[in-house]
């Protein structure tokens, strides 16, 4: 969310890069203690942020130049965030399952099933119980995927390719091929409460921004005192804090965001925290990096991999609930193909398809990149026909950068 304030991110990144310039000449021996600036700001590590900044700057420049309404208006930013939120939530969970070395193609079908369950039950049960049942169904789908993959030992790609089709079929059967919609006003009202409102975020954002800044500076100082290398995390916290505060400064005290954006931000923060700060997160990376080594280190690999599937399906189910609530209706082909956007976001964020590497913040940036592209096409009236070509090119280019950059690093 903090990434769309491109000018500020750009400035912060730039100043850091320039302050890093003089250290480039240090001897290799020193690098153990100093931060490796060149690597940190390489295309491979930061590429997705550069691409996002570049794209946003280009679009805003063109809008200003052609006299269209400013692209960088708060309204438009929150619009892009809102459009991206649903896919981004699933993409964050997809990153986790990719890190554990698995794969889930069935997310869009699970989301559609969840939306169908929600919409069909909301009239009789009310919104919250129906949402609960929808989530339950999604978790069961995750359990099914995980159990087949982990206990029968079938490749996750094949299994979820099957469940992608099968669960879509279940949706067809369940809806009898018809569109469903919610009739009772109470349920519609609850859905609107859940999905369409806006949260005032100025105060929380200010608190979070200040907190991130403080924590970031504290760990930077601590690293300097112990003559240790500066971690990417602490730098990121500082930059994130600056972005949060900049957003508040731009939007004023009355700054508010659509609720799904807030859900997305909270979910991403939680997953980021768990992956980076807890023993669970460490083990998730270990399980994906080398399952056998993780198992022989006493980690219950199957449980972690199962949890990946369940998290992914649960996030898809939540996405389905958001989707169903957005329109109060669902048709059987809802979200068809969305799994590819989800996976594309994770790949743009540099997540390895072989497991063991990935970052949810970068995945979020990847999702924003894709939706900024879409949004930019609309704003600039470029026509939707070119969109697919450009999006596909961006994904392949990103993958090429990660692969080529990775190979070069290994060669050193």
């Amino acid at each position, binding site marked *: 969310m903090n990434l769309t304030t491109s000018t500020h991110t750009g400035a912060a990144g730039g100043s850091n890069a320039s302050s890093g310039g003089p250290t480039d000449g240090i001897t290799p021996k020193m690098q153990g203690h100093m931060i490796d600036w060149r690597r940190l700001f390489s295309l491979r590590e930061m590429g997705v942020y550069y691409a996002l900044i570049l794209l946003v700057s280009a679009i805003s420049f063109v809008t200003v130049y052609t006299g269209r309404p400013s692209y960088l208006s708060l309204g438009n930013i929150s619009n892009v965030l809102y459009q991206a939120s649903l896919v981004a939530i699933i993409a964050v969970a997809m990153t986790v399952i990719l890190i554990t070395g698995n794969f889930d193609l069935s997310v869009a079908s699970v989301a559609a099933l969840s939306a169908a369950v929600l919409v069909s039950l909301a009239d009789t049960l009310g919104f919250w119980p129906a949402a609960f049942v929808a989530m339950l169904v999604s978790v069961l789908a995750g359990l099914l995927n995980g159990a087949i993959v982990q206990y029968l030992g079938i490749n996750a790609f094949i299994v979820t390719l099957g469940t992608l089709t099968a669960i879509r079929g279940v949706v067809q059967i369940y809806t009898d091929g018809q569109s469903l919609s919610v009739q009772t006003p109470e349920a519609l009202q609850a859905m609107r409460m859940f999905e369409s409102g806006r949260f005032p975020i100025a105060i929380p954002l200010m608190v979070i921004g200040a907190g991130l800044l403080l924590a970031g500076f504290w760990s930077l100082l601590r690293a300097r005192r112990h003559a240790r290398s500066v971690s990417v995390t602490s730098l990121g916290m500082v930059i994130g804090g600056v972005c949060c505060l900049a957003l508040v400064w731009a939007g004023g005290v009355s700054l508010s965001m659509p609720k799904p954006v807030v859900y997305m931000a909270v979910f991403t923060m939680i997953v980021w925290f768990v992956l980076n*700060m807890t023993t669970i997160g*460490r083990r998730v990376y270990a399980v994906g990096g*080398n399952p*056998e*080594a993780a198992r*022989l*280190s006493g*980690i*219950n690999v199957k449980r972690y991999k199962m949890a990946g599937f369940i998290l992914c399906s649960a996030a898809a189910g939540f996405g389905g609930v958001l989707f169903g609530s957005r329109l109060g209706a669902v048709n059987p082909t809802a979200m068809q193909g969305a799994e590819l956007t989800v996976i594309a976001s994770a790949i743009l964020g540099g997540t390895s398809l072989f497991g063991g590497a990935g970052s949810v913040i970068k995945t979020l940036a990847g999702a924003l990149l894709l939706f900024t592209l879409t949004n930019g096409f609309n704003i600039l009236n470029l026509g939707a026909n070119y969109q697919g070509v450009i999006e596909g090119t961006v994904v392949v280019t990103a993958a090429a950068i990660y692969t080529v950059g990775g190979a070069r690093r290994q060669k*050193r």
Partner: protein
Amino acid sequence: MVNEVPLLQLQGVTKTFPNGLVALRGVNLEVLRGTVHGLLGANGAGKSTLIKILSGSLPASGGRIVWKGTAVEYSSPKAANDMGIATIHQHIPLVPTLSVLENVFLSEEGRWRRNPAIRAHFSDLCQRIGYWLDPDGLVSDLSIGQRQMVAILQALGTGADLIVMDEPTASLAASEREVVYKIVRQLSSVENKAILFVSHFLDEVMALTDRVTILRDGQAVVDAETRELDESRIAEAIVGRQIVALEKAPPQKFDAGAPVLLELKDVASPGKLDPISLKVRAGEVIGIAGLLGSGRSEVLHAIFGADPDATGEVFVDGKKIRKSTASAVRAGLGLVPEDRMAQGLVPGFEIWRNTTLPALDGVARGRWFPDRAVERQRGAEAIRRLSIKANSSDIVVTELSGGNAQKVTIAKWLFSDVKVFLLDEPTAGIDIGAKTDILLLVRELAAAGKAVIIVSSEFEEILAVSTRILVMRDGRCIAERVGHETSEHELVLLAGGHSANSDGAQQSNVQSL
């Protein structure tokens, strides 16, 4: 001899990696036709880099490579092959889903997949080395020893004049090694090929090679006829210091009344391991001697709960543990697996992240939040305590050489309350300095009241550290000996069984040569 143009000459070959690491500082090397040339050196001395340069997978940064009298430059394995240099890499890169025949002639550029001429060529090759393999067998069905033969055939099939063998015997059993030795001798004496033979086993280098080059820190420190050298001089040149004479140290003492730390009751694994019962006391080092496939690794995996088919009961400190690696670790067992890269380490993790992986709770605040500062200290502590060659604990483990990576897999278990160490071939494929470090550590652990079970195919190491030795064959424990009352000769005989009587004799021949 003096007038003959050497087949291969390296003149001041250097290699500097882009990150500033200097791997070779000017190596001179001459390989003559019809000789077996030994290349030795500790881990990180530059052997692998030199081999990669010879095989064309890395370019040299400086110096000249002279091939049959003319300076050459080549930059791909294909070019090296075409010139006449074939390399057999340590981890044999074969295609497991193809047949032996297809693997041997993988680089052949014929148009058709089935070609009778190739079949004839294959049997001709087999005849030349005096070893027969079924050409239609799948490589995935072969033992490691047989795969090594396929790799040798592959190298021969290219018609190479120089064959580089990178530790061809490291993962082979004694009888399989003999076959490799025979082939190497045959190739050099009968076919007038040159062999560059890389090995960590000093006895086989002494027995097999005509000339030896020893690398240390990227330079050739010794280049001499083998008959002018002896094992201790070679060992000294490799490590650059006098090795601690482990074998001559006094036998371990341990308190026979010490508490039993590990007890096995009828631990077995169907088809792989017959029931075995065992009590291990604090301070005891149990050596398991056995050949490849004798069930020695299976015992350790069954104890550690890593074998889902295992039956029987395992007690640690009197408490029965459930059959899972998680409960084994919780109970205080630590396993150092045989294949350090595939089973021991997470490749993307730094030294510190790998070191703390099994005992994250111990470095975490409130069990859940690992403290990276503490973890880095652990990593630095591991580097110091095991003398791992690394500037900092932030180095990713894939950048470490074999011996240093092995030390990290051991370090994983040193920082938590591990009571019983299970070491599976902890010294395989590492240099003599690192070996000594690890064996000393085993003694240190025993002296600190831990129990250790160590598996090794180098029986002298087992003899050097063990208080008791179990000999395994065909998934059964066939004998138990007290450490200082047995000999390497006896262990070889027991482990090899009746058929190995000749093997044992051969091996002692090799050593006495």
